[in-house]
């Protein structure tokens, strides 16, 4: 038991579970403060999400919807964690995600491209934004958080302007992909049969898992990953050891951004969501990616599970009793979780100290 507790991975897992529990508890307290009557029921609805439906078939269908939205989140959290492992905080992932949405939707609707070229273009567009942040960071010493936020807003307004050309006449939403250009929809590979015919479950699921595995391999098994992490740890030491530190910084942000762009393509090319051209705030997907990345213990495989969890409670927020509460309660819970995740290091340290003290006592006896 004690040996198990000393394991780094187990410690991270315990810390994440603690964060989740505390986050849910605080969410519950907030609900209680607003209205004590329905609080217990509503927090259960958030946790249950699609299980609130009674028929198994509709449960499966809603499960498919959550899964479809969780996959882009996996990519966003991979984007964040990839950069973070290299010592960069890519808050610009939100904007890179927007750029990806812009490129894939425009290529699909205006030029009638197939799904793969659209996806690649989304990655390229996002990577371009990442490269700007990287170049500014490497050559001009601009803090990547601030340039990232600025680019988020620039990307949002550009996307609104560009996608206005392919929007419906009567509404601010872009045209239906399924009507205009079905070839841009991601293939489902028969996956929809597993989810009571939910066509939103597509090749995105295996692709996202593949991406997570790839990121894991790159970071922990390759020379490139080693060099990137070394640059993140100490830029000057990396240069001294003969690594091209500027190139590494830019490359990191390009890869990280391409992941976020892929995430957007995995959502918008399922046809599940359409872009609203009058949107006045950056979509929260990229920011939720931060929560998922840290909740997953900054491990690519952990990110898959934590992303699903975050999306699960975000969707669960739709089921709260809206006569008293608003769905944004889920955002409160996930942001509390992010806040608590910043103490993970502290929790781990406390656990280690406790174990060491016990060992010492044992030794004294």
């Amino acid at each position: 038991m004690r040996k198990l507790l000393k394991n780094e991975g187990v410690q991270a897992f315990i810390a994440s579970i603690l964060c989740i529990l505390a986050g849910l508890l605080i969410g519950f307290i907030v609900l209680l403060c607003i209205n004590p009557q329905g609080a217990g029921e509503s927090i259960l609805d958030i946790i249950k999400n699609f299980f609130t439906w009674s028929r198994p078939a509709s449960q499966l269908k809603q499960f498919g919807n959550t899964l479809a939205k969780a996959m882009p989140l996996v990519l966003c959290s991979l984007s964040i964690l990839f950069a973070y492992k290299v010592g960069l905080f890519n808050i610009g992932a939100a904007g890179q995600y927007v750029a990806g949405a812009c490129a894939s939707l425009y290529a699909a609707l205006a030029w009638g491209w197939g799904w793969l070229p659209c996806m690649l273009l989304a990655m390229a567009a996002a990577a371009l934004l990442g490269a700007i942040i990287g170049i500014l960071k490497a050559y001009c010493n601009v803090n990547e958080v601030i340039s990232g936020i600025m680019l988020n807003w620039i990307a949002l307004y550009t996307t609104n302007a560009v996608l206005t050309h392919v929007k419906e006449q009567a509404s601010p939403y872009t045209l239906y992909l399924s009507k205009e250009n079905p070839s841009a929809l991601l293939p489902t590979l028969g996956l929809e049969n597993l989810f009571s015919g939910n066509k939103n479950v597509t090749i995105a699921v295996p692709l996202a898992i593949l991406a997570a595995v790839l990121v894991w391999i790159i970071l922990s098994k390759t020379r490139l990953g080693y060099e990137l992490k070394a640059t993140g740890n100490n830029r000057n030491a990396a240069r001294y050891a003969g690594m091209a530190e500027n190139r590494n910084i830019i490359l990191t942000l390009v890869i990280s951004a391409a992941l976020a762009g892929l995430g957007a393509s995995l959502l918008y090319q399922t046809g599940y969501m359409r872009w609203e051209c009058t949107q006045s705030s950056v979509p929260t997907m990229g920011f939720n990616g931060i929560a998922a990345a840290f909740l997953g213990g900054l491990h690519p495989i952990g990110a898959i599970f934590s992303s699903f969890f975050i999306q699960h409670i975000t969707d669960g927020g739709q089921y709260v009793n809206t006569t008293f509460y608003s769905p944004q309660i889920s955002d409160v819970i996930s942001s509390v979780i992010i806040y608590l995740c910043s103490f993970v290091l502290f929790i781990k340290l406390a656990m280690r100290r406790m174990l060491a003290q016990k060992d010492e006592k044992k030794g004294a006896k």
Partner: protein
Amino acid sequence: MLLLIQYTLIFASVLLLVALGGCISEHSGVINLGLEGIMVVGALGGALVMRSLATSSALVMVLVAMLAAALAGMLYSCLLGVAAIHLKADQTLVGTAMNLLATAAATVFVKAMNTAANPDKPSSEIEYVYARKLFVVNINGFEFNWFMPVAILAVVLVYIFLYKSRLGLRLMACGEHPQAAASVGINVFKMRWIGVLISGLLGGLGGLCYILAGVSIWKFENGVAGFGFLALAVMIFGQWKPARIAVSALLFGLFRALSNTYTGFPFLVSLNLPGNVYNMMPYIVCLIVLAFTSRASLAPKAEGIPYDPGTR
């Protein structure tokens, strides 16, 4: 033209207040990326007061609303203080969490309040038409806002605090070399708390100023549109010095004001650019300016590094 000056001054006041907050916090050694969230909470605090003080004199209204915003901001900044000063958390992450939390919590709160008042209208908006009239004085079409002199006063006070007072000089020492400061008996934890709390105060005021800038109804779902980060850019462009921050706030305020008023200039309208371009302008200018000014940065040396009394 008058409108452009008016909007430039009011947006500059917002940026100035918030940037000064960030400046003091960073001089004490804590990077405050949660300013955006602090602004939202400050705005909420002020808006609640403005709503409940339906009939009161201008003086009471202005003072109480400002006080509420400042207090709300300070209270919220404690989240950063606890995490960054005592628990040695990653300050970037804490700030981000605070920004997300503020918008989400404010939305939930305002919606709950509005639903309680009228179950058919679950909106996240607060209206303060009457209160806004008390904050502005109309001089021949120019809307003078009481926040303008407050912002100027803030620059002077912050300058005196940082460079002429004993407390301020000690606070700055903690951002440059906390171990050295501690070795001569300065309490680094206390100084950093003062820095964080003042940034909360100024950030909260800035938030209230932002929602009073042009409208008299605010939708809390929207947050403050990256203004907290623009303020940080203003601070960097101002090289962490109050007077320079004031000048750069004016510059950024001008570009933000253009997006509100470009339709009033025949020259700009004739360019026939889409409105989105003007919306983007402040952010683009910010990137360009940062590219040229960040290299020779005069940032406090120990900012962002949790203080550990054990290291020398």
